């Protein structure tokens, strides 16, 4: 929908909120109509109507004060921080060679806020992070491994010293000014990096989850220089969302989810790509990063900023070629609109805005010695020999130069377009929410009006009939519940059965594989030196290919299978050395190598299968969610229709509607549900391998901390490994895995779906009871005298007319939205 239409729809929605709330307010003052609130009565009374008014005012506020979020993501070293600093007109975010954003951070435009303030609402997760890292660092220090840690060369020592000397974190809820903010962000970045180090291995996912919602994220409030006085500001608050790059979230499933959800919510997305990396060796890496974010944003909201275009020359690509390159090589034509690809120079934009900002506050530029950016600005503005030019500059000429640098940066166009479009996108969301609320309030209000009006027109017998029929429908809700429970029960057993089937099939697959591998070791009773070559010859690549095509049926023999195959190839060599399931090695090193390679190969196979199982289970659960919601909705619809019909037969004109049950399955993270169940059984120990993988869990589950400790014994002369032990451990793991998936799925249905089903059915009963209350209350008007009745009838007629007009207007907006 185009921006003008959205603005018109927003204006119409606001008009409707205005007239409907005024109408509801007036209805409260109509004698003998809406009764005053009685907390013990379930009906549409004054308190309910006031709640509608409050809800509508809330929608009004959301629509007039839109939260407009422009998310900024960047591939490695593409200049994301510079871009954000350019919009802010100051050094808000620290620049480093390494990726700097570890947590998504909101930079919110706040009028009059010259000095930036970073607010941190939640301290506890960061404090826990600090304490855990400090503890681990001390342990590493004690064991002499501290020098192996991956630290930032400049700030790393300071952080280490802090961690070693104090186990008490120093986080604050507020950081004021660029320096404090920058220091905090650097500190946080280093701490998170340290936490991820495999020797420390803190669960950083818990941090991403804790700060995943925009209400919980660190927020920097500042007047964003370029948006100062922007006309869009009058209608909303613009925030820039600084996100970790694709290379960051590739390391964490939780961060990926946070990232995806935030990008989906964003009103516009700036994707920063480095012009200087195009057509170079770095291309592949950039493409890989972009590949991982495909599908996170829609085409109409994606603005591709090709940064560092100031470095273009006659030998590089021109603007049109850059656009073609982005379309054809980096992204796909269906993912990006060529009109939304902008070659720019964020650095020049930053310099111009930085200079503009400084001129605004000081009316003169600082000396290049004091602030190095002035030198950069002058170079861009005046070229070589800038020193002379800078000396005899008038403020007017300087302003002209600032404008010229800004224009050269070509930053204006994407910013203007994105902010405008972001506003429209944010408005569209708010319109949708407001119009749904309006529709709901107006429908219930019109029902109430009609009931009172019908009570005036009907005789007592018909009213009593209506009351009894509604009572019967309410009683019927109990059997609806039983029916739904029965039907969902059947669906649950079906899911469990299908899960079982999937898992058992996979168990068979893995068993076959293991048997195949170990069989070769068991039948070969020959010595290592004599038989190695023969064994290799007997197991051809074709055999393995057949095995994998059975294992991954339906899939092509792709890179993944090849990778697994190569692991088996390695293992096969070792296994072929086996003697009756017990392998003997002459030295410790060979034994260790064999165990490690075997472990690695099986782990990889299990992880592959684990992913397949998870995918299958997810798909089944999604389908079941739809089926279960379908059962509930169908029952609800039948009940409401029956109630409407019986009331209609008794002369009561009502339209009943309850929002259909829809499980928000997209937001459910099955991966974390299953892994949580697995990981809770895992003991976290510093320095232990595989502790977060399923395989690691297997080790703990079967009572081994590593195979080696139990299954191979170090002797002075020989080392032996019992293959049957490995096999039985693996099988035991597979069985446990089946149990975990099955239990988790049933638990998930019970914990996630059932409460929502119960709530929906409660809502149905309450809804009908509420109307029973309305009819009961309307009976009081039967006792009014003729003139009071006549006045009320006339007033109700007018109010019904208004409500019907609103109903039509709301439908028009809805059809415009879907148009």
């Amino acid at each position, binding site marked *: 929908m185009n921006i003008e239409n959205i603005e018109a729809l927003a204006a*119409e929605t606001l*008009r409707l909120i205005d007239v409907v709330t005024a109408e509801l307010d007036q209805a409260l003052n109509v004698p003998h109509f809406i009764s005053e609130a009685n907390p013990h009565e379930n009906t549409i009374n004054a308190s309910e109507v006031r709640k509608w008014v409050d809800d509508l005012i809330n929608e009004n506020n959301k629509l007039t004060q839109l939260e407009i979020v422009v998310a900024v993501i960047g591939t490695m070293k593409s200049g994301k921080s510079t871009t954000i600093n350019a919009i802010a007109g100051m050094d808000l975010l620290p620049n480093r060679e390494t990726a700097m954003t570890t947590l998504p951070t909101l930079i919110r435009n706040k009028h009059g806020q010259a000095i930036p303030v970073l607010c941190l609402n939640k301290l506890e997760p960061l404090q826990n992070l600090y304490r855990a890292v400090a503890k681990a660092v001390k342990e590493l220090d004690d064991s002499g491994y501290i020098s192996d840690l991956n630290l930032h060369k400049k700030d790393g020592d300071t952080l280490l010293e802090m961690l070693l000397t104090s186990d008490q974190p120093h986080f604050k809820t507020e950081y004021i000014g660029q320096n404090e903010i920058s220091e905090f962000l650097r500190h946080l970045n280093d701490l998170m990096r340290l936490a991820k180090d495999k020797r420390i291995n803190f669960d950083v996912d818990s941090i991403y989850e804790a700060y995943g919602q925009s209400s919980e994220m660190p927020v920097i409030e500042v007047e964003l220089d370029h948006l100062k006085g922007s006309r869009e500001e009058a209608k909303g608050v613009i925030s820039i969302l600084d996100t970790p790059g694709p290379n960051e979230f590739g390391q964490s499933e939780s961060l990926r989810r946070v990232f995806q959800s935030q990008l989906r919510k964003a009103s516009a997305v700036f994707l920063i790509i480095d012009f200087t990396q195009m057509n170079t060796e770095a291309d592949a890496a950039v493409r890989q990063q972009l590949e991982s974010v495909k599908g996170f944003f829609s085409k109409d909201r994606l603005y591709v900023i090709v940064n560092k275009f100031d470095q273009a020359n006659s030998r590089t690509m021109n603007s049109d070629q850059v656009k073609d390159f982005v379309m054809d090589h980096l992204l796909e034509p269906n993912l990006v609109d060529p009109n939304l690809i902008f070659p720019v120079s964020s650095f020049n934009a930053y310099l111009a805005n930085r200079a503009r900002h400084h001129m605004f506050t000081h009316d003169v530029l600082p000396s290049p010695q004091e602030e190095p950016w002035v030198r950069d600005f002058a170079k861009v503005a005046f070229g070589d020999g800038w020193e002379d030019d800078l000396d005899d500059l008038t403020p007017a000429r300087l302003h002209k130069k600032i404008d010229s640098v800004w224009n050269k940066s070509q930053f204006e166009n994407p910013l203007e377009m994105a902010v405008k479009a972001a506003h429209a996108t944010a408005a569209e969301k708010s319109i949708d929410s407001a119009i749904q609320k309006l529709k709901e309030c107006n429908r219930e209000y019109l029902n109430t009006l009609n009931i009172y009006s019908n009570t005036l027109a009907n005789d007592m017998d018909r009213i009593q009939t209506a009351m009894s029929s509604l009572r019967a429908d309410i009683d019927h809700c109990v059997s609806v519940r039983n029916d739904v429970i029965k039907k969902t029960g059947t669906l649950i057993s079906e899911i469990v059965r299908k899960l079982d089937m999937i898992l058992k099939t996979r168990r068979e697959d893995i068993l076959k594989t293991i048997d195949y591998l170990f069989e070769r070791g068991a039948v070969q009773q020959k010595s290592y030196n004599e038989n190695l070559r023969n064994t290799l010859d007997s197991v051809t690549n074709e055999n393995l290919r057949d095995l994998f095509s059975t294992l991954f049926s339906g899939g092509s023999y792709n890179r993944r299978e090849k990778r697994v195959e190569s692991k088996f190839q390695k293992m096969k060599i070792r296994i072929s050395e086996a003697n009756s399931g017990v392998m003997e090695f002459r030295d410790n090193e060979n034994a260790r190598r064999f165990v490690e390679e075997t472990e690695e190969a099986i782990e990889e196979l299990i992880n592959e299968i684990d992913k397949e199982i998870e995918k299958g289970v997810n798909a089944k659960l999604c389908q079941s969610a739809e089926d279960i919601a379908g059962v509930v909705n169908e029952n609800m619809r039948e009940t409401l229709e029956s109630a409407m019909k019986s009331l209609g037969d008794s002369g009561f004109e009502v339209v009943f509607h309850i929002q259909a049950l829809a499980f928000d399955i997209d937001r459910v993270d099955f991966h974390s549900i299953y892994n949580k169940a697995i990981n809770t059984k895992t003991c976290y120990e510093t320095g232990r391998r595989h502790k977060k993988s399923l395989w690691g869990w297997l080790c703990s589950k079967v009572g081994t901390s590593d195979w080696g400790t139990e299954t191979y014994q170090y002797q002075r002369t020989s080392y032996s490994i019992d293959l049957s032990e490995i096999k039985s451990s693996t099988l035991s793991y597979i069985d446990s895995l089946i149990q975990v998936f099955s239990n988790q799925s049933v638990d998930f249905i019970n914990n996630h779906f059932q409460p929502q089903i119960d709530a929906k059915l409660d809502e149905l009963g309450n809804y009908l009871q509420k109307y029973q209350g309305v009819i009961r209350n309307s009976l009081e008007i039967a006792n009014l005298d003729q003139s009071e009745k006549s006045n009320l009838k006339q007033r109700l*007629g007018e109010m019904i007319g208004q409500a*019907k*007009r609103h109903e039509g*207007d709301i*439908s*028009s907006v809805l059809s415009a939205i879907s148009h």
Partner: protein
Amino acid sequence: MSPTQPKAITLDSLLEEHPQIREKSLVDLTNGLEVIDDHIEFSNPDNTGFLSRLWRHVTGESDRRQHAINQHISTSLKSLEGWLLYLEKNSIKSNMGIIKISNKLLETRQALLLIKNSHDKVKQDVDIILGRLSEVDVKCKQLDDRIDRVDAGRLAEQQLSAVFDRWKARRLHAYPMLLRVFFVLDELYWGDFGNYIRHHKPNHAEEKRLLNQLHDKALIQFEQDWKDFHGESSVNISWQHVLLQDIQSMEPIRREAMAYLTHENQTDAIKKMPMITYLNQMASGSLDNPKLVECSRYVPRVLTPDNAINHFLLDYESRYESNKI
């Protein structure tokens, strides 16, 4: 929504095009006639510009302006005579008009008798007027009887079909499409259709059937007009702006007629008949008319064919309701 270029229009041809103008003017003049003891005068209804022209057009005596009526009784009587002449010349068709006029005739007769008794000089004049009044009275009674005698339902159906045929035959295409809806509904309101609806209780089965038929016919024809103009797009967000321009560029006499027909004296008309009031403000006010802005609070900015018809029908529902007999 711009109208096709009409040929030059006169008051006569306008009255021919929109017969409801006569009916409304009779009722408005009757409403404007105040009969208090021995004093008879036409009070000045709000929207007199067009009405005065009609009045002059029929009586042909421009010096008989109502503000001069109060000068002396003979002027009042002449003015009254003009009213009766107007009634005679213009046949009353709606029962609403007949009832209002009959009541007014009764009041006027009583006032004239008082004048006759207290002012010897005008006895003869009063007798002439009383004679004329009796003739009108008889005519009214005859019309009233006719309405009672004939099959009102059949007349209503006939009018419904005739009015829609005119619309279908593009006889209203001199107007923007929203005004076509208004003129159709308005003509029905003042004609046999309106008589029938006003006579029945709300929710009467036959009335409901006729109103549903009206809704369906209006929607079908309006959707056709809409499609001819907007193509497949079923939503219009700029109709207010475009309609205002179209109305402002209409021939003044048409605009005046429209302002006259859309004028409603009812209190709260802006809320009870927002669409009609909005059209009235568009036709009668200037572009920066503050009342137009006030009216826009009650009309939709986003229009679909369905909602346009919904709004007009709800406005007429209010109009019928407030003039129920």
